[in-house]
């Protein structure tokens, strides 16, 4: 069975034989860009469909079931609708920033894609500070949101953007601290090394309670960072109608919408990479038959399975919980998550030094 | 407290009933006691009704106005959360320039109800903190749509 690694290798060798190395690199870049955009649009379609179905079943409904078999093409129809819709720009808006904002949000989401490992040895750019790169670039997206809120010339948008700013900046802390927990245990910022270190067991199992706590905090923090319910204060449709993207319509709105889902996907890949072993299959100690069976499943499936499991949990949150208030949201971060994750970091450091983990 | 008790107490307290030419009357025919008083006594009477502990009418549950074509009548329905005997208070107002003291400082619910009566009947509540249109759109000041002779050829359909 050709794995993603083999396909990439074949293309790479063929290009290098046929063209000189510069041309080959350029063509590879184009291929990467096209497949990244393709992945994004696919993700958008799949995740939105998934969200609608998950919410429908939790709300004792059926969900979309008219367009295509079991309503599979509903999101395609929605995308078509959004594409042909007029992208309005309000009169008093700052036109340049207003039109720039959705692209910034989208581009940030695309850039984070670079260091993520999707399968065994299948990675765009295995840079040695991969995790740091992801953590720092992802915080740029708040600029896009602030820009959208400010440029819309709408008070609801402004309030939403300000909330979002406060929220993302504070939750970055605990997200970062829980990432560092794993970095301490691994001793590397390189994503491939982090995954390799989990070949004998995932960190969530190997790292005892501190890793588990870090995992829970990570899930909470990234839910907040991606502006998902119960932390969707930036949108808060019952308070701020639609928050920072109140004034957006058509494809510009679709970009925000898509970026939200792509961001969820990315943070869930990150969570899977850090805590659930990335593309590593599930192994149990010395049970070799079981381990071989698990190895037989392609590594990309492992990663996507873990990612979608995390995405499902985040969706489950959204369709169960009420929304927090802005001050409660910040209280939760500064009074609970941050102290706990700091204490947890200490504990992990101690554990790493003493070598208590497996 | 029964209706009779209330009547006795009211007569005891207010001299208006006992003077030679009473400026206020009490009507017992309805379910509840109805008191007609003059506009001059109004503020004194309602303040007494609220503050005097033997009445303690702390709950103003209905405030409205009736157009009798010759005059307007303000109707106040009070009750008390302690003795639960409602009282109806009626004050006759001039139809052209109706004016009465506000009770919004005594019962805060009156603020909204008085604004409604102001726009619908044109009653001017003196010393009201914020006497503006509440329900009607702009440009309907002094149109007094709830009066019987109100005509609106555009919006009203005669069946």
């Amino acid at each position, binding site marked *: 069975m050709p794995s993603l690694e083999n396909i990439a290798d074949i293309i790479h060798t063929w290009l290098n034989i046929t063209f000189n190395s510069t041309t080959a690199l350029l063509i590879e870049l184009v291929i990467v860009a096209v497949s990244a955009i393709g992945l994004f649009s696919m993700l958008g379609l799949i995740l939105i469909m998934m969200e609608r179905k998950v919410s429908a079943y939790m709300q004792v409904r059926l969900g979309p079931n008219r367009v295509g078999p079991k309503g599979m093409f509903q999101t395609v129809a929605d995308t078509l609708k959004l594409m042909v819709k007029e992208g309005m720009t309000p009169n008093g808006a700052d036109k340049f920033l207003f039109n720039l904002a959705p692209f910034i949000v989208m581009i940030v989401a695309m850039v984070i894609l670079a260091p993520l490992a999707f399968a065994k040895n299948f990675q765009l750019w295995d840079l040695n500070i991969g995790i740091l790169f992801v953590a720092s670039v992802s915080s740029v997206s708040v600029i896009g949101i602030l820009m959208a809120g400010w440029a819309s010339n709408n008070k609801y948008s402004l309030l939403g953007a300000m909330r979002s700013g406060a929220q993302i900046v504070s939750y970055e802390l605990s997200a970062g601290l829980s990432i560092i927990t794993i970095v301490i245990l691994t001793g590397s910022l390189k994503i491939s090394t982090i995954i390799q270190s989990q070949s004998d067991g995932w960190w969530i199992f190997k790292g005892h309670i501190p890793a588990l706590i870090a995992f829970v905090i990570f899930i909470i923090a990234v839910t907040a960072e991606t502006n998902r319910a119960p932390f969707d204060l930036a949108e808060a449709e019952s308070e701020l109608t639609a928050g920072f993207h109140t004034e957006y319509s058509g494809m510009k709105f679709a970009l925000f919408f898509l970026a939200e889902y792509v961001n969820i996907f990315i943070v869930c890949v990150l969570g899977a990479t850090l805590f659930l072993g990335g593309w590593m299959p599930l192994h149990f100690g010395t049970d070799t038959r079981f381990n071989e069976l698990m190895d037989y499943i392609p590594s990309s499936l492992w990663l996507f399975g873990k990612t979608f499991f995390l995405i499902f949990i985040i969706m*489950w949150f959204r369709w*169960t919980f009420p929304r927090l208030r802005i001050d409660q949201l910040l209280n939760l971060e500064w009074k*609970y998550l941050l102290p706990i994750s700091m204490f947890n970091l200490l504990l992990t450091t101690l554990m790493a030094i003493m070598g208590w983990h497996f | 407290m029964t209706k009779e008790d209330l009547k006795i107490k009211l007569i005891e307290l207010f001299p208006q009933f006992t003077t030679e030419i009473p400026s206020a009357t009490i009507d017992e025919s309805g379910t509840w006691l109805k008191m007609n008083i003059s506009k001059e006594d109004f503020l004194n009477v309602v303040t007494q009704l609220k503050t005097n502990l033997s009445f303690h009418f702390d709950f103003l549950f209905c405030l409205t106005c009736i157009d009798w074509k010759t005059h307007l009548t303000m109707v106040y329905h009070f009750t008390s959360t302690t003795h639960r005997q409602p009282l109806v208070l009626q004050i006759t107002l001039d139809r052209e320039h109706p004016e009465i003291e506000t009770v919004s400082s005594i019962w805060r619910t009156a603020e909204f109800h008085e604004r409604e009566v102001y726009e619908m009947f044109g009653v001017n509540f003196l010393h009201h903190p914020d006497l503006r249109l509440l329900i009607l759109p702009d440009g309907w000041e002094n149109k007094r749509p709830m009066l019987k002779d109100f005509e609106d050829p555009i919006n009203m359909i005669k069946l």
Partner: protein
Amino acid sequence: MFLKKYLQDIYYAVKSLLIGMRRTGYYFTHHKEIITQQYPDNKDSLSLPERFRGEVVMIHDENNEHACTGCTACELACPNATIKIITQIDTTPEGKKKKALNTFVYHLDLCTFCNLCIVACPTDAIKMANTFEHSVFDRSKLTKILNKPDSKIRAGIE
């Protein structure tokens, strides 16, 4: 003491959240709890109660006869002028002049289905039908004439 309360708070908070998630998780996995009715598909099995107020119809029997005397009781009972009855003067075989129904105009677009006309009718000539798909493309189609063409009053109804 402070730490104990702090941890207790976290415990109860997480527990309450997990209970809620268990409930939504239950519905996520138990699809037979779904209550959605897929409307145009279930048209055959859809049954509305016989009292359902869909629109006013006039009862005609197989001889194309109705029971409306044109007394305008329904017109008077209607709060929003939905019904307009046009009467004519018929001459009975005995030579007497008698008021009779010419056209029963019913404005479905004005009707609020309050049932007052049905209650008011002394001869039970009209009733509420349980049809409910009233949407049309032209508003004028909602003005209906309830008595069928060439229908006449049933004998013996005064």
